């Protein structure tokens, strides 16, 4: 823990979270808050996806499944069961992590592209299950009852509370990435990414490591899903498990620099702003996928290390600060 305090990125993460929390409060800027919460969610999803793709070398095309399941469980617990939002979100996170552990023990027996395909299968199967699941409203989904906002001091207050909670989850996501990166556990993951068979012969218990990181990478996205869908007031299978969002997470990660903590945040932030700009621009809104796809193609072709990889090449010593 003491070594964490000596790392510049640790303080930068706290600073970032502080700025996110402070900016919209100043002048009570609700529009800015809504923009920033989307950036925060993008950072949460991307940095946790990075634990699989960047750290372990396993492409998860269905990462959004954790976010969506977290949203459903959180909403169910908070509205149907009437639990406090924070408790609901945490319990949702734990349950989704357990589900992920279960899935992981199965599909992580697969390597490389086979694993990637299986994650698509998991996404589609879970979505199909939820769309047929009666207690969760099948394809129409669920709504947050007005009463559910009461424990948080009414709807207006509840929206601010959720915002701060999401910012907290964002900071935790980045800190988690940083902590894992410098740990022995992280070293084992990187060894698996480089050459799984060699890593096993060196003593890394790849089966257990992969299952744990898959499960860990599910936790904070699930918590964020619970908070976000509560804030939005409703959930249904098509918005909870949006395949495109799952895939855009990969674009964000590659853009910023896969395997780096700062890269995940940078890529998510930049891409999310770009996407919001494109989606609201009257002329370009229809082309946001074209631009995203072209961007991804350019990045992997010209700078496979992403923006951070490019920074490393430009200033080699930047590695010590930007991890």
């Amino acid at each position, binding site marked *: 823990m003491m070594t964490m305090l000596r790392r510049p990125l640790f303080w930068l993460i706290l600073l970032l979270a502080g700025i996110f929390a402070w900016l919209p409060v100043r002048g009570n800027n609700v529009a800015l808050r809504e923009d920033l919460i989307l950036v925060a969610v993008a950072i949460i999803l991307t940095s946790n996806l990075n634990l699989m793709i960047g750290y372990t070398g396993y492409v998860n095309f269905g990462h959004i499944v954790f976010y969506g399941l977290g949203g459903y469980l959180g909403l169910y617990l908070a509205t149907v069961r009437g639990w406090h939002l924070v408790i609901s979100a945490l319990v949702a996170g734990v349950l989704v992590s357990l589900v992920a552990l279960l899935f992981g023990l199965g599909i992580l027996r697969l390597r490389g592209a086979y694993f990637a395909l299986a994650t698509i299968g998991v996404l589609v199967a879970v979505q199909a299950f939820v769309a047929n699941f009666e207690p969760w409203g099948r394809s129409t989904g669920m709504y947050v009852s007005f009463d559910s906002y009461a424990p948080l001091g009414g709807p207006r207050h509840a929206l601010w509370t959720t915002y701060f909670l999401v910012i907290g989850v964002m900071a935790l996501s980045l800190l988690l990435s940083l902590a894992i990166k410098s740990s*022995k556990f992280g070293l*084992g993951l990187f060894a698996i*990414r480089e050459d799984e*068979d*060699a890593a096993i*012969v*060196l003593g*890394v*218990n790849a089966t257990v490591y992969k299952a744990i990181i898959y499960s860990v990478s599910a936790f904070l996205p699930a918590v964020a899903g619970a908070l976000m869908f509560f804030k939005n007031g409703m959930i249904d299978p098509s918005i909870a498990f949006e395949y495109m969002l799952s895939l855009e997470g990969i674009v964000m990660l590659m853009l910023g620099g896969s395997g780096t903590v700062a890269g995940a945040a940078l890529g998510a932030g930049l891409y999310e702003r770009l996407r919001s700009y494109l989606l609201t621009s009257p002329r370009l809104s229809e082309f946001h996928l074209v631009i995203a796809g072209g961007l991804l193609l350019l990045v992997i072709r010209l700078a496979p290390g992403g923006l951070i990889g490019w920074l490393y090449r430009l200033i080699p010593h930047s590695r010590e600060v930007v991890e």
Partner: protein
Amino acid sequence: MTGLLEVRGISKRFGGLQAVSDVSFTLNEGEILGLIGPNGAGKTSLFNLVNGVYKSDKGSIMFAGKDITGLSPDRVVRLGLARTHQIVRPLQGMTVLENVIVGACFGRENQSMHDAHATALEVLEKVGLAKRAYSPARALTLASKKRLEVARALAAKPKLLLLDEVLAGLNPTEIAQMIDIIHSIRDSGISVFMIEHVMQAIMNLSDRILVLNLGRKIAEAPPAEVVHNTDVVEAYLGFPDIVDKLRGMA
């Protein structure tokens, strides 16, 4: 007296190919046991059986008094049985030092990152790679990659080290250096089981030699006896040069 490694009746079949067939042997504590045989004799397969990369069809493996039959490679290395690969497999994207830290962290002593760092530097010094500690592993020459393989395995603080053709592809100077490294490993109390095609080296290094042919053990004896064993000579008949070399050396 029981040996450090006791292999009893081990067999492995791949489809129609009997790669290893009913092989038994004992490796004593502190010795260097050589493993030779013509190409395709099943040498690397035997290594893969011993360290758990392959699951054996039959037979048992005892290591340091424990039954390790069927254990996965990561469990085996934690018990103190490390190996190198014939085809070098550095973790390409990491530095030389990080590669060795992985070996130390997940080896027999299960070291912390901090201790592993110290161990890694020490081991790199020993194999002569200290100057390259911060180079990316992919930038090393073949000879250095072989040393890295040895360093990673040593960092695991093994009781027994399996070396799979660490001399192949090296020039005479590099071979001499590697032989010194192997001697120093044995002197530090680590037993060695090594596959080698460089006959002069293995004849000089080994206390005893195990000979495989077509997956079967055909001899297990000190080097001087092995070269006069008729089965061994026959196995190498297709390779008359080697027979001559063997004879010349003994």
